[in-house]
Protein backbone atom coordinates (compact mmCIF):
# COMPACT_ATOMS: atom_id res chain seq x y z
CA UNK A 1 0.00 0.00 0.00
CA UNK A 2 1.42 3.35 -1.01
CA UNK A 3 1.21 6.08 1.57
CA UNK A 4 1.54 8.67 -1.18
CA UNK A 5 -0.36 9.14 -4.41
CA UNK A 6 1.59 11.43 -6.73
CA UNK A 7 3.29 12.99 -3.67
CA UNK A 8 -0.05 13.57 -1.94
CA UNK A 9 -0.34 11.78 1.42
CA UNK A 10 -3.25 9.36 1.45
CA UNK A 11 -4.37 10.55 4.86
CA UNK A 12 -4.81 14.10 3.57
CA UNK A 13 -7.18 12.94 0.86
CA UNK A 14 -9.10 10.83 3.35
CA UNK A 15 -9.30 13.85 5.64
CA UNK A 16 -10.71 15.93 2.80
CA UNK A 17 -13.30 13.23 2.13
CA UNK A 18 -14.23 13.17 5.82
CA UNK A 19 -14.62 16.95 5.89
CA UNK A 20 -16.84 16.78 2.83
CA UNK A 21 -18.98 14.02 4.35
CA UNK A 22 -19.39 16.00 7.56
CA UNK A 23 -20.38 19.13 5.66
CA UNK A 24 -23.01 17.08 3.84
CA UNK A 25 -24.38 15.69 7.11
CA UNK A 26 -24.44 19.20 8.62
CA UNK A 27 -26.32 20.49 5.60
CA UNK A 28 -28.96 17.78 5.96
CA UNK A 29 -29.31 18.66 9.64
CA UNK A 30 -29.55 22.44 9.48
CA UNK A 31 -31.32 23.14 6.20
CA UNK A 32 -35.07 22.88 5.66
CA UNK A 33 -35.18 23.38 1.91
CA UNK A 34 -35.62 19.99 0.30
CA UNK A 35 -33.54 20.84 -2.80
CA UNK A 36 -30.59 21.88 -0.63
CA UNK A 37 -30.96 18.63 1.29
CA UNK A 38 -30.58 16.92 -2.08
CA UNK A 39 -27.42 18.90 -2.75
CA UNK A 40 -26.06 17.76 0.63
CA UNK A 41 -26.74 14.15 -0.33
CA UNK A 42 -24.74 14.75 -3.50
CA UNK A 43 -21.87 16.07 -1.37
CA UNK A 44 -21.95 12.88 0.70
CA UNK A 45 -21.91 10.71 -2.40
CA UNK A 46 -18.97 12.69 -3.75
CA UNK A 47 -16.97 12.20 -0.58
CA UNK A 48 -17.55 8.45 -0.83
CA UNK A 49 -16.38 8.56 -4.44
CA UNK A 50 -13.22 10.31 -3.31
CA UNK A 51 -12.51 7.55 -0.78
CA UNK A 52 -13.07 4.91 -3.47
CA UNK A 53 -10.64 6.54 -5.88
CA UNK A 54 -8.07 7.08 -3.13
CA UNK A 55 -8.00 3.46 -2.06
CA UNK A 56 -8.10 2.32 -5.67
CA UNK A 57 -4.92 4.27 -6.34
CA UNK A 58 -3.24 3.45 -3.02
CA UNK A 59 -3.85 -0.29 -3.33
CA UNK A 60 -3.30 -0.21 -7.11
CA UNK A 61 -6.53 -2.08 -7.69
CA UNK A 62 -8.83 -0.77 -10.39
CA UNK A 63 -12.15 -1.97 -8.97
CA UNK A 64 -12.58 1.16 -6.86
CA UNK A 65 -12.72 3.37 -9.91
CA UNK A 66 -15.19 1.05 -11.62
CA UNK A 67 -17.46 1.21 -8.59
CA UNK A 68 -17.27 5.01 -8.63
CA UNK A 69 -18.77 4.85 -12.11
CA UNK A 70 -21.67 2.80 -10.74
CA UNK A 71 -22.12 5.19 -7.83
CA UNK A 72 -22.40 8.05 -10.30
CA UNK A 73 -25.06 6.21 -12.30
CA UNK A 74 -27.06 5.52 -9.14
CA UNK A 75 -26.67 9.15 -8.07
CA UNK A 76 -28.08 10.24 -11.41
CA UNK A 77 -31.05 7.90 -10.99
CA UNK A 78 -31.57 9.14 -7.44
CA UNK A 79 -31.48 12.76 -8.58
CA UNK A 80 -34.03 12.10 -11.32
CA UNK A 81 -36.49 10.30 -9.05
CA UNK A 82 -35.92 12.60 -6.08
CA UNK A 83 -36.41 15.81 -8.02
CA UNK A 84 -39.55 14.39 -9.63
CA UNK A 85 -40.76 13.71 -6.09
CA UNK A 86 -39.91 17.29 -5.15
CA UNK A 87 -42.01 18.59 -8.04
CA UNK A 88 -44.93 16.32 -7.11
CA UNK A 89 -44.75 17.40 -3.46
CA UNK A 90 -44.52 21.06 -4.44
CA UNK A 91 -47.59 20.70 -6.63
CA UNK A 92 -49.45 19.17 -3.71
CA UNK A 93 -48.22 21.34 -0.83
CA UNK A 94 -47.01 24.53 -2.54
CA UNK A 95 -43.90 24.37 -0.39
CA UNK A 96 -40.44 22.85 -0.33
CA UNK A 97 -39.93 23.19 3.41
CA UNK A 98 -39.57 19.77 4.95
CA UNK A 99 -41.05 21.02 8.21
CA UNK A 100 -44.41 21.32 6.50
CA UNK A 101 -44.39 17.78 5.13
CA UNK A 102 -46.15 16.09 8.00
CA UNK A 103 -48.85 14.12 6.25
CA UNK A 104 -47.23 10.80 7.19
CA UNK A 105 -47.03 11.70 10.87
CA UNK A 106 -49.79 10.13 12.97
Amino acid at each position, binding site marked *: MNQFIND*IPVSYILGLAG*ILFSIGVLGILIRRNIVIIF*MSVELILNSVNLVF*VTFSKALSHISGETIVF*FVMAIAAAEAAVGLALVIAI*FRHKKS*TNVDELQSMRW
Partner: protein
Amino acid sequence: MDEIIYMNIESSPSFLLFIFFGTVTVVTALSVIFQKNPVVSAVSLVFTFFSLAGIYGIMGALFIATMQVLVYAGAIMVLIVFVLMLLSQRTETLSRYRKHPIRLVLLSLFALGFFFLLYSALTTGVPHSEQKGKGYELTEYSFPIQGTGTVNTKGNVATVGASTYLDYLLPFEMISILLLVAVLGAVILAKKRLTEVEQTKDNVL
Protein backbone atom coordinates in the same frame (compact mmCIF):
# COMPACT_ATOMS: atom_id res chain seq x y z
CA MET B 1 6.39 12.69 8.64
CA ASP B 2 6.64 16.47 8.71
CA GLU B 3 9.98 16.54 6.93
CA ILE B 4 8.53 14.43 4.15
CA ILE B 5 5.61 16.82 3.79
CA TYR B 6 7.91 19.85 3.59
CA MET B 7 9.98 18.16 0.91
CA ASN B 8 6.81 17.50 -1.00
CA ILE B 9 5.70 21.11 -0.82
CA GLU B 10 9.01 22.27 -2.22
CA SER B 11 9.42 19.70 -4.91
CA SER B 12 6.02 18.67 -6.18
CA PRO B 13 3.44 20.83 -7.90
CA SER B 14 0.77 18.15 -7.55
CA PHE B 15 0.74 18.53 -3.77
CA LEU B 16 0.26 22.28 -4.11
CA LEU B 17 -2.51 21.65 -6.61
CA PHE B 18 -4.12 19.25 -4.15
CA ILE B 19 -4.00 21.90 -1.42
CA PHE B 20 -5.58 24.43 -3.76
CA PHE B 21 -8.35 22.16 -5.01
CA GLY B 22 -9.03 20.83 -1.51
CA THR B 23 -9.41 24.35 -0.15
CA VAL B 24 -11.77 25.26 -2.98
CA THR B 25 -13.75 22.08 -2.34
CA VAL B 26 -14.20 22.75 1.38
CA VAL B 27 -15.00 26.45 0.99
CA THR B 28 -17.57 25.91 -1.75
CA ALA B 29 -19.13 22.96 0.09
CA LEU B 30 -19.56 25.18 3.14
CA SER B 31 -21.05 27.80 0.85
CA VAL B 32 -23.54 25.21 -0.42
CA ILE B 33 -25.04 24.65 3.00
CA PHE B 34 -24.79 28.19 4.39
CA GLN B 35 -26.08 30.31 1.50
CA LYS B 36 -29.59 31.65 1.78
CA ASN B 37 -30.33 31.66 -1.92
CA PRO B 38 -30.65 28.12 -3.34
CA VAL B 39 -29.37 29.18 -6.76
CA VAL B 40 -26.14 30.43 -5.17
CA SER B 41 -25.90 27.06 -3.42
CA ALA B 42 -26.25 25.31 -6.77
CA VAL B 43 -23.48 27.41 -8.32
CA SER B 44 -21.24 26.63 -5.32
CA LEU B 45 -22.00 22.96 -5.82
CA VAL B 46 -20.82 23.22 -9.43
CA PHE B 47 -17.50 24.60 -8.16
CA THR B 48 -17.26 21.76 -5.63
CA PHE B 49 -17.76 19.21 -8.38
CA PHE B 50 -15.18 20.82 -10.65
CA SER B 51 -12.54 20.98 -7.92
CA LEU B 52 -13.20 17.34 -7.04
CA ALA B 53 -12.67 16.54 -10.71
CA GLY B 54 -9.36 18.36 -10.44
CA ILE B 55 -8.37 16.22 -7.48
CA TYR B 56 -9.27 13.06 -9.39
CA GLY B 57 -7.15 14.31 -12.26
CA ILE B 58 -4.16 14.92 -9.97
CA MET B 59 -4.53 11.41 -8.59
CA GLY B 60 -4.47 10.00 -12.11
CA ALA B 61 -8.06 8.81 -12.28
CA LEU B 62 -8.75 10.51 -15.58
CA PHE B 63 -11.87 8.57 -16.47
CA ILE B 64 -13.45 9.42 -13.13
CA ALA B 65 -12.51 13.07 -13.55
CA THR B 66 -14.20 13.18 -16.94
CA MET B 67 -17.27 11.42 -15.63
CA GLN B 68 -17.37 13.82 -12.68
CA VAL B 69 -17.57 16.80 -15.01
CA LEU B 70 -20.02 15.12 -17.39
CA VAL B 71 -22.40 13.50 -14.94
CA TYR B 72 -22.26 15.61 -11.80
CA ALA B 73 -21.38 19.08 -13.05
CA GLY B 74 -23.40 18.51 -16.20
CA ALA B 75 -26.42 16.28 -15.88
CA ILE B 76 -27.25 16.37 -12.18
CA MET B 77 -26.66 20.09 -11.83
CA VAL B 78 -28.87 20.76 -14.85
CA LEU B 79 -31.62 18.78 -13.12
CA ILE B 80 -31.19 20.64 -9.84
CA VAL B 81 -31.07 24.10 -11.40
CA PHE B 82 -34.04 23.26 -13.59
CA VAL B 83 -36.10 22.23 -10.57
CA LEU B 84 -35.01 25.34 -8.67
CA MET B 85 -36.19 27.52 -11.53
CA LEU B 86 -39.47 25.62 -11.87
CA LEU B 87 -40.18 26.08 -8.17
CA SER B 88 -39.06 29.76 -8.19
CA GLN B 89 -37.56 29.68 -4.74
CA ARG B 90 -37.06 33.37 -4.30
CA THR B 91 -38.89 33.53 -1.00
CA GLU B 92 -36.70 30.98 0.69
CA THR B 93 -37.95 30.10 4.14
CA LEU B 94 -34.89 30.17 6.32
CA SER B 95 -33.90 27.39 8.60
CA ARG B 96 -35.13 27.51 12.15
CA TYR B 97 -31.57 26.96 13.31
CA ARG B 98 -30.45 30.28 11.95
CA LYS B 99 -32.46 31.95 14.68
CA HIS B 100 -31.02 29.65 17.33
CA PRO B 101 -27.23 30.05 17.21
CA ILE B 102 -26.77 27.63 20.10
CA ARG B 103 -28.44 24.86 18.12
CA LEU B 104 -26.32 25.74 15.10
CA VAL B 105 -23.16 25.56 17.21
CA LEU B 106 -24.21 22.26 18.75
CA LEU B 107 -24.99 20.72 15.38
CA SER B 108 -21.67 22.00 14.01
CA LEU B 109 -19.87 20.43 16.95
CA PHE B 110 -21.75 17.21 16.21
CA ALA B 111 -20.57 17.32 12.61
CA LEU B 112 -17.02 18.06 13.76
CA GLY B 113 -17.01 15.08 16.12
CA PHE B 114 -18.50 13.02 13.32
CA PHE B 115 -15.60 14.06 11.10
CA PHE B 116 -13.00 13.02 13.67
CA LEU B 117 -14.67 9.64 14.17
CA LEU B 118 -14.79 9.11 10.43
CA TYR B 119 -11.20 10.21 9.93
CA SER B 120 -9.86 8.00 12.69
CA ALA B 121 -11.85 5.06 11.35
CA LEU B 122 -10.54 5.60 7.83
CA THR B 123 -6.93 6.07 8.85
CA THR B 124 -6.86 3.13 11.22
CA GLY B 125 -8.06 1.07 8.30
CA VAL B 126 -5.04 2.18 6.28
CA PRO B 127 -2.22 0.21 8.02
CA HIS B 128 -4.29 -2.97 8.08
CA SER B 129 -4.68 -3.10 4.32
CA GLU B 130 -1.05 -3.77 3.62
CA GLN B 131 -1.34 -6.48 1.02
CA LYS B 132 -0.04 -5.69 -2.39
CA GLY B 133 -2.56 -4.73 -4.97
CA LYS B 134 -3.54 -7.55 -7.25
CA GLY B 135 -5.12 -7.72 -10.64
CA TYR B 136 -3.99 -4.31 -11.79
CA GLU B 137 -0.73 -3.18 -13.17
CA LEU B 138 -0.34 0.04 -15.02
CA THR B 139 -0.40 -1.42 -18.48
CA GLU B 140 -2.22 -4.68 -18.14
CA TYR B 141 -5.36 -5.86 -16.47
CA SER B 142 -5.62 -9.51 -15.49
CA PHE B 143 -8.83 -11.31 -16.16
CA PRO B 144 -9.14 -14.52 -14.14
CA ILE B 145 -11.59 -16.61 -16.16
CA GLN B 146 -9.27 -17.35 -19.04
CA GLY B 147 -6.68 -18.82 -16.76
CA THR B 148 -3.53 -16.81 -17.19
CA GLY B 149 -5.13 -14.23 -19.42
CA THR B 150 -4.14 -10.62 -19.16
CA VAL B 151 -5.60 -7.77 -21.14
CA ASN B 152 -3.04 -5.27 -22.30
CA THR B 153 -4.32 -1.79 -21.77
CA LYS B 154 -2.88 1.65 -22.12
CA GLY B 155 -3.98 4.37 -19.79
CA ASN B 156 -6.57 4.81 -17.14
CA VAL B 157 -9.65 4.87 -19.35
CA ALA B 158 -8.86 1.59 -21.05
CA THR B 159 -8.15 -0.08 -17.73
CA VAL B 160 -11.41 1.08 -16.21
CA GLY B 161 -13.21 -0.02 -19.35
CA ALA B 162 -11.63 -3.47 -19.21
CA SER B 163 -12.59 -3.80 -15.57
CA THR B 164 -16.15 -2.66 -16.28
CA TYR B 165 -16.78 -4.99 -19.17
CA LEU B 166 -14.88 -8.02 -17.87
CA ASP B 167 -15.39 -8.09 -14.12
CA TYR B 168 -18.52 -6.04 -13.71
CA LEU B 169 -20.59 -6.86 -16.77
CA LEU B 170 -23.68 -7.99 -14.87
CA PRO B 171 -23.77 -4.93 -12.55
CA PHE B 172 -23.30 -2.75 -15.62
CA GLU B 173 -26.39 -4.20 -17.29
CA MET B 174 -28.33 -3.94 -14.04
CA ILE B 175 -27.37 -0.27 -13.79
CA SER B 176 -28.80 0.32 -17.25
CA ILE B 177 -32.10 -1.31 -16.24
CA LEU B 178 -32.09 0.74 -13.03
CA LEU B 179 -31.61 3.95 -15.01
CA LEU B 180 -34.48 3.03 -17.34
CA VAL B 181 -36.78 2.34 -14.39
CA ALA B 182 -35.70 5.57 -12.68
CA VAL B 183 -36.43 7.66 -15.76
CA LEU B 184 -39.85 6.04 -16.18
CA GLY B 185 -40.57 6.60 -12.48
CA ALA B 186 -39.52 10.23 -12.72
CA VAL B 187 -41.83 10.81 -15.67
CA ILE B 188 -44.74 9.14 -13.89
CA LEU B 189 -44.12 11.05 -10.67
CA ALA B 190 -43.70 14.46 -12.25
CA LYS B 191 -46.55 14.40 -14.74
CA LYS B 192 -49.96 15.68 -13.83
CA ARG B 193 -52.84 13.37 -13.11
CA LEU B 194 -54.80 12.46 -16.21
CA THR B 195 -58.00 14.06 -14.96
CA GLU B 196 -56.17 17.28 -14.16
CA VAL B 197 -54.80 17.33 -17.66
CA GLU B 198 -58.30 16.91 -19.08
CA GLN B 199 -59.66 19.66 -16.89
CA THR B 200 -56.95 22.09 -17.84
CA LYS B 201 -56.66 20.99 -21.41
CA ASP B 202 -56.89 24.52 -22.71
CA ASN B 203 -53.95 25.64 -20.62
CA VAL B 204 -51.61 22.87 -21.68
CA LEU B 205 -49.46 24.34 -24.41
